[in-house]
């Protein structure tokens, strides 16, 4: 991999949640057009890693660089330059589909988006429907359309294919391919098979700490979560 094309990289990340070491020594590099797929069982730290990459969660040690700058040096600016779609759909029951798009574009500082982006995930006919009447899959598709309301190089997606049907997964794959062809970067955590050609794979279980890493050198747990007998 050429050093000059390197766009996002993580070095020796270590993550603690709830007093427990989730993963350690995680390192990767991604350049323009690259994709990273995180796989691993529940609780292996996929979402935590994505939240670190999105700048929400600070790693215990290690650092993340975006265009050679540590993302936590100026995390608010960094966050405004990326897209993160997490487990929650961010859909309001009382706003229509197109109002969601307009708000998402404006919240990134952009003008009203072209409503044609609704076609990509087959939502065009629903543009005046309020969020409360959407099915789980439709909500998910609307949530993914957020990626197109404002340009951003880095897309971070947490289980994007949950409750999507096969046709929508195909559309999502096309969206991701187009984004990468334009020089975009995709980081994705998934249980289902989403085809991402030439994607790097990280299996989270490879970075699972050894048993001894749960404990400090004295052999006691690092954080004592004592809930008592109740």
């Amino acid at each position, binding site marked *: 991999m050429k050093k000059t094309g390197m766009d996002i990289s993580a070095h020796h990340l270590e993550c603690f949640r709830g007093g427990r070491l989730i993963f350690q020594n995680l390192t990767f590099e991604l350049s323009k057009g690259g994709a990273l797929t995180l796989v691993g069982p529940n609780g292996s730290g996929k979402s935590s890693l994505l939240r670190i990459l999105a700048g*929400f969660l600070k790693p215990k040690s290690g650092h993340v660089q975006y265009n050679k700058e540590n993302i936590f040096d100026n995390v608010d600016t960094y966050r405004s330059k990326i897209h993160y779609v997490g487990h929650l759909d961010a859909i309001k029951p009382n706003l229509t589909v197109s109002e969601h798009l307009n708000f998402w574009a404006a919240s990134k500082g952009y003008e009203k988006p072209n409503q044609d982006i609704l076609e990509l995930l087959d939502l065009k006919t629903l543009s005046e429907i309020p969020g409360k009447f959407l099915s789980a899959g439709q909500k998910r598709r609307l949530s993914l359309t957020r990626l197109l309301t404002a340009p951003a190089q880095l897309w971070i997606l947490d289980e994007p294919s949950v409750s999507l049907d096969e046709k929508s997964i195909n559309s999502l794959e096309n969206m991701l391919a187009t984004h990468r062809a334009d020089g975009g970067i995709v980081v994705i955590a998934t249980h289902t098979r989403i085809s991402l050609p030439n994607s790097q794979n990280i299996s989270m279980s490879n970075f699972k700490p050894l048993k001894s890493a749960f404990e400090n050198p004295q052999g006691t747990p690092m954080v004592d979560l004592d809930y008592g007998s109740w």
Partner: protein
Amino acid sequence: MAFLTLIKRDLRLAIRGGIGSLMAVVFFIVSATLFPLGVGPESALLERIAPGVLWVCALLASMLSLNHLFQDDYDDGSLEVIILGPLPLELVTIAKVLAHWISTSLPLIVITPVLAILLNLDMSGFPTLMYSLLLGTPILSLIGSIGASLTLGTRRGGILVSLLVLPIYVPVLIFATGAIEGAIFGFGESANLLILAAALVASLVLAPWASAAALRMAVE
């Protein structure tokens, strides 16, 4: 741009949310009308307690609606989307507080003169009552935003918010009712109103900063 959009969106949600955002003003009316029933219809007594009753009810009504300030956006993930935008979180807080104030406190202020008549407040206290509410309720919303952001993600956050912010509300209550009584009894209201104005400026500067810090922690 994003600032005004956020205000507009919150107001739109408040209007479409129906009765929910009017809860505060309904609570205000109901609780204020309970006092004449409780203490009796004696007009001299009502006249004496009217400033305090109106202000305590306004304060509780404002607090009642506080935990919705960030909670709904936190629960459905919209808060993350907003944080992923370029608008500084301090301005996000101000925008949300402003929208919240317009949708809950402004209707409350509009209805206040009617309740003041009901409680037999002396006419000379009316202008000061309105000034004190216009200056004081934004302080309540701003201070409340700190409590609302700190309790995000906790169960039974509503009660915790009350415990956190009620002690800080006390000075607002004292100076606001002091101003109204000053106007009625003729020893002047301007000193108290000026202190309220100063408190408004101070909380406008300090509260968004504290709330923004709490919001950053909440999305970890």
